[in-house]
């Protein structure tokens, strides 16, 4: 293999962005000169780290010190955090070159990357289509080769679903595996930062860098981090893969997607895995449960955006009026919808019927998985019930938009890890993704399963024609 210098790799990435980003709108902030200078500096700083010099895009809800971090929202206009998120600190220490901020649904509220104040990101496989969301910019940037890797965040499928729709690999680690310090919170009990990469090998490498206990995050697990690249083994022998019947509802999953999944099962079977039927009986409640808990937490997390200390401020005489004007002008429709929904379900009189009930149902969903993992090592599902849909198709129908996360949400509620890998294409050439789920802190089995599948297929090698 030809050795390419770090500045050259970086320049290639910047050139690719210059060539295709206008079509995609995946990267929303980039300081070309600064990035090039950083790359030069990294070249001189010799070291044996494998990840040195890799260009990586950062979802716009992860704080990078003194660079704009806006969650793709007007309300954070001009905000430059005076600190680095823990994952950014780790990336910098490992010699990554952070190449710009990636587009997203405003505050990660969405599954289509259409609610960004910077306009929608387009799917590299078909520019009429959404790339998925909310980490749509991260997924499109990797799929289009603008960067080698990207960081996203996953609260209900926001890494896995766009990865599936853009034909790349996306992982949501176990809740607590990766520090959330510096990730602008959407729903604190569900959020996890995760890698979006072109293949499983890169996913393992990136996960190695970002994982681990952080004293700045009370909810990060104080557990040893294995070397995930050691799980890059092409071997599915003795692997029991559970297929939950609730994830294949009549009429609830696109026929082409179902077909791709069914073929994938055969690939795994012939690699030595055993496929078993399982049941996750409380699956039907997951979406409802999620749409109580996530907006409730979001309504509180987003209360701080009021124009007092940073971001947008609308002029007004008094503080209540200023807060109200600022928030009304600063938040988009979907953000407002979720804030209203969350405020409603927390307000007195509704707390017990909604929030408390949802926390109990969450226990049921979690227990479903615990039971299932007694009989299998990995669970296999489609990542999304459909391939990418048209821009604008669901934007005025929130409920149908919410349904596109129906297969990814349960993992966030249960806190378990999940990965999406490319597993086929529709007739019209849109990628289809398959999801694997595992026990808490068993990302190793996910990587092994995903790698084995990837090495037995060619889907990850196909690139969009831009």
């Amino acid at each position, binding site marked *: 293999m030809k050795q390419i210098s770090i500045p050259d790799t970086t320049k290639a990435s910047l050139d690719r962005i210059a060539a295709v980003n206008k079509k995609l709108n995946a990267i929303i902030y980039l300081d070309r000169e600064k990035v090039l200078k950083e790359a030069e500096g990294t070249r001189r700083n010799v070291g044996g780290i494998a990840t040195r010099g890799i260009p990586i895009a950062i979802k716009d809800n992860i704080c990078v010190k003194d660079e704009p971090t806006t969650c793709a929202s007007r309300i954070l206009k*001009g905000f430059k955090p*005076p600190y680095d998120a823990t994952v950014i600190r780790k990336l910098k220490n490992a010699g990554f070159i952070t190449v710009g901020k990636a587009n997203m649904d405003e505050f990660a509220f969405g599954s289509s990357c259409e609610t960004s104040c910077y306009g929608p990101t387009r799917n590299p496989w078909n520019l009429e289509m959404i790339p998925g969301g909310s980490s749509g910019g991260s997924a499109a940037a990797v799929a289009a080769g603008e960067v080698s890797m990207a960081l996203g965040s996953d609260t209900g499928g926001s890494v896995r679903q766009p990865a599936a729709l853009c034909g790349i690999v996306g992982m949501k680690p176990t*809740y607590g595996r990766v520090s959330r310090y510096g990730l602008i919170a959407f729903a604190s009990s*569900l959020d996890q930062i995760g890698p979006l990469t072109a293949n499983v090998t890169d996913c393992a490498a990136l996960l190695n860098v970002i994982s681990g206990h952080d004293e700045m995050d009370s*909810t990060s697990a104080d557990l040893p981090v294995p070397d995930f690249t050691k799980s890059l083994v092409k071997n599915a022998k003795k692997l029991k893969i559970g297929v939950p019947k609730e994830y294949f509802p009549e009429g609830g999953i696109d026929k082409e997607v179902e077909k791709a999944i069914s073929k994938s099962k055969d690939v795994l079977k012939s690699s030595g895995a055993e496929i078993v039927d399982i049941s996750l009986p409380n699956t039907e409640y997951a979406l409802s449960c999620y749409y109580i808990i996530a907006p409730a937490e979001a309504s509180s997390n987003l209360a701080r955006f009021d124009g007092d200390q940073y971001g947008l401020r609308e002029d007004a005489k008094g503080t209540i009026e200023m807060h109200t004007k600022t928030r009304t002008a600063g938040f988009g429709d979907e953000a407002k919808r979720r804030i*209203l929904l969350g*405020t409603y379900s927390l307000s007195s009189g509704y707390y017990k019927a909604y929030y408390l009930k949802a926390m109990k149902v969450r*226990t049921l969903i979690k227990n479903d998985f615990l039971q299932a993992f007694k009989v299998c090592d990995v669970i296999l599902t489609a990542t999304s019930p459909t391939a990418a849909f048209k821009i604008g198709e669901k934007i005025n129908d929130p409920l149908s938009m919410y349904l596109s996360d129906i297969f990814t949400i349960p993992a966030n509620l249960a*806190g378990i890890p999940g990965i999406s890998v490319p597993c086929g294409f529709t007739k019209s050439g849109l990628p289809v993704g398959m999801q694997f789920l595992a026990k808490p802190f068993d990302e190793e089995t996910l990587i092994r399963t995903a790698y084995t599948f990837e090495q037995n297929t060619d889907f990850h090698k196909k690139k969009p024609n831009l």
Partner: protein
Amino acid sequence: MKQRIDKKTVRHVARLSRISLSGKEVALYQKQLADILDYINQLNKADTTGTPPTSHPLESLKNVFREDRVRKSLPAEKALQNAPERKDDFFSVPKIIE
């Protein structure tokens, strides 16, 4: 909870959230929230008798502390770098009209 969210409640919730809505928006959000709540109401079918609530996915996690040690603060200049308005080293905000 089979009752549908009414306009008065939408307005109340908007006020609590410091968001102002036009009459048209109130009507739109009322309809959309009602649809979502109708869907969400299926939770009532789930039998949760005796089920404890999960407020946190990592059950084993408890007693996470930090030591009582003073760490370096940000310089005031850095703390105020994003301030829309400031007066010396204070954040400046419109007065509170109660």
